[in-house]
């Protein structure tokens, strides 16, 4: 019986972490959809989300809904700017140039912000906007941070769904992810659709940064690296370019990570994620929902 309670408890923690990975993975997968590129600077947008929230709380004392909105708005704008400045000039360049540029953007953001004039390379404690309150439900407990992370994630995913499947921009985005050239032939400025995609991905990663920092309240300019890589793995697991695949992949990675930490050792948690990736690449390289792989 006790093991069952422990399992459920860990499962809740896993879903919490998975929700954050899902939010980040969506950005990878959507950008891959329209540009066929892996935006390696995406993890740093997540980090910026955490830092923007940090200032939103410490300097401006923003109420939580405003904090989420302003963080996601700013990270959206930053993601769009990165695309305009660094990636757009390479639209007709080989894909490998884009990939290298993305790595460059990532390093630029991390190391510039680690300067003492900015955020410094040190860990900073993240002040939670709420006091933790635990609720006992039957034999296990859940706290308000869990509940906030779940509800913010569900609301974000619902809004994303409406945007992608019900709005004019969403239709254009799905069209662009299938055929960019023909999308232009529909009278659509595809540059706007690409900006829109980066903006949505940036907003979701920013929200992810805020939620993650509430659960693990220590922030640092390099904090985006591992969650970034793991969310990328989540996107690959679900089938890169496939939106619901990224969400499922995020939860699989989050839950696996928490279970490995709980039942094996937290030393192995990153390694196991890579082993999962390795197994998938061997036996199902297109991911869970992927059909035919496209060679880049």
């Amino acid at each position, binding site marked *: 019986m006790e093991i069952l309670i422990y399992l459920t408890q860990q499962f809740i923690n896993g879903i919490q972490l998975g929700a954050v990975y899902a939010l980040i993975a969506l950005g990878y997968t959507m950008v891959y959809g329209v540009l066929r590129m892996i935006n390696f600077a995406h993890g740093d947008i997540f980090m910026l989300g955490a830092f923007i929230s940090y200032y939103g709380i410490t300097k401006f004392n923003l109420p939580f809904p405003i904090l989420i909105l302003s963080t996601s708005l700013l990270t959206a704008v930053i993601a769009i700017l990165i695309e305009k400045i660094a990636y757009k000039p390479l639209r007709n360049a080989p894909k490998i140039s884009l990939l290298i540029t993305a790595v460059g953007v990532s390093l630029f953001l991390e190391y510039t912000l680690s300067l003492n004039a900015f955020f410094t390379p040190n860990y900073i404690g993240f002040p939670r906007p709420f006091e933790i309150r635990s609720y006992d439900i039957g034999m296990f407990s859940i706290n308000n941070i869990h509940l906030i992370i779940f509800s913010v994630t569900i609301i974000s995913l619902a809004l994303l769904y409406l945007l992608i499947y019900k709005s*004019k921009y969403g*239709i*254009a985005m*799905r*069209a662009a*992810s*299938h*055929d960019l*050239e*023909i*999308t*232009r*032939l*529909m*009278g*659509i*400025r*595809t540059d706007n659709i690409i900006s829109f995609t980066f903006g949505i991905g940036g907003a979701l990663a920013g929200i992810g940064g805020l939620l993650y920092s509430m659960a693990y309240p220590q922030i640092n300019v390099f904090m985006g690296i591992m969650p970034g890589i793991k969310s990328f793995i989540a996107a690959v697991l679900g089938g890169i370019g496939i939106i619901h695949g990224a969400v499922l992949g995020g939860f699989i990675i989050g839950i696996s990570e928490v279970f490995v930490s709980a039942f094996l050792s937290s030393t192995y948690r990153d390694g196991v994620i890579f082993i999962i990736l390795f197994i998938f690449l061997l036996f199902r390289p297109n991911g869970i929902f992927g059909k035919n792989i496209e060679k880049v």
Partner: protein
Amino acid sequence: MSEKFFEVRNLYVNYGAIKALEDISLSATEGEIISLIGANGAGKSTLLKTICGFIKPLKGKINFKGINLLRLSTDLIVKHGITMVPEGRRIFPNLTVKENLDIGGYSLKNKKIFSELYDFVLKLFPRLKERIKQFAGTLSGGEQQMLAIGRALMSNPKLLLLDEPSMGLSPKITNEIFELIKNINNDKKITIILVEQNAKLALKYSNKAFVMETGKIVLSGESEQIENDPQIIKAYLGG
């Protein structure tokens, strides 16, 4: 005479070092159907892609109702009233039939024109109406071609470029599609430039024809005249 409705003048296009189009000139008056015929690799599709801005030419001019198209990007060319039904249809299989039509009319600001066109397309292709909620990828080849044409019509074009509408279709469906193309031309007074491998069919349905060989126009004239040209009969019509 005032300005020509549509005109290509002395157009040169290169793919790297390969000359794809050389000194192409042609023109169309409003309401005509023009066909481009010739073997594979003659440059017919390249010409259409250049007109709608996918390929930038080396030199030459393309004018549409007095507007220089070479300055414009594809999305603006479409807004000026030119669109293409691409080779291989290239509908969006991950979108429903309705969404494919919606996105075809994406740039239309006027809701009334949009719904008129929508009704027109569904009347023209009743089979699309039956499948309106289906994903376009589940349609048959002929239905996909209808959708590709319908999607193009949704942008309210004045000039429609059709690239190999018969590709991969049975003769019966092909005839059906060509009759519909004729109707579109009649009802909406849309000028059509048609690229077609099946020269016989293309000549039957067009007013004027241009015969292309290795990037050049080697013969042009009234379609009837070309249909009876002994050389053309020998080369393209299997006489």
